[in-house]
């Protein structure tokens, strides 16, 4: 089991990064191209967009995680460097989206 921990770690981090990146991409797309009503005119809606985006991100993360796991099993150094670099890019993207496209 201990031998699998590094690959499982990379898979978990890749899954979490997928949730973060898909969240900000979905919100960015909605803000730029979506035709959402003015929040001041909406009394109530059943769809909670934030939870919806997180659910879609979790679904995508479930698809990415096995790929990241097998990549880490084949080439751990490459996979670790990839997630470490991706984390910084995704963090910058998420903050930029939150500020510019709320």
């Amino acid at each position, binding site marked *: 089991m*201990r031998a699998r*921990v*590094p690959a499982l*770690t990379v898979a*978990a*981090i890749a899954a*979490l*990064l997928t*949730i*973060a990146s898909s*969240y*900000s991409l979905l*919100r960015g797309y909605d803000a730029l191209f979506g035709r959402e009503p*003015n*929040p*001041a*005119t*909406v*009394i*109530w*809606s059943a769809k*909670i967009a*934030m*939870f919806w985006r*997180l659910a879609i991100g979790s679904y995508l993360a479930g698809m990415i995680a096995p790929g990241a796991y097998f990549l880490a099993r084949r080439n*751990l*150094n490459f996979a*670790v*460097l990839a*997630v*470490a670099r991706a*984390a*910084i890019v995704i*963090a910058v993207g*998420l*903050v930029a*989206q*939150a*500020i510019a496209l*709320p």
Partner: protein
Amino acid sequence: MTLLLRIAEHIHGHLGWLTVAALLHPAIVLRNPKRRARLSVVLAAGFVALTWALGAAIYPEYRARLKQHLFIEAPRMGWMFERKEHLAVGVAIFALIGTIAHLSAPAFDDDGTRAVMSRLAHRCFVIAAAVAILVGALGVSVAVIRSF
């Protein structure tokens, strides 16, 4: 019901600032990649999870009772709250990544890879702490304008 929401909102706000403090600790001590700080990391992640869970629990009531009024009375603050939501997602995810990276780093046999994981943990906690400060400041500024 309103009283309960008000209490939950206040607890959420105070927990939020405690979370900032809890996140700052690993962000500082993990500068040294050889430093192990499991308790600090787990506590920080626990605070983030607790604050996030409480925020998520009262979020549907915020949408039902406050969001429209906030956007009518102070639209800029409404958009600030939207920013807070997105940034809070980032805090939760990067705190979790930092926790996973720090706790699993000893399982990496290669020194170079272990060092990358340790640096990743530190960077994630720095990101989470910095963004959490923004989230806290935005939360307070919105709560001053409109509350349950």
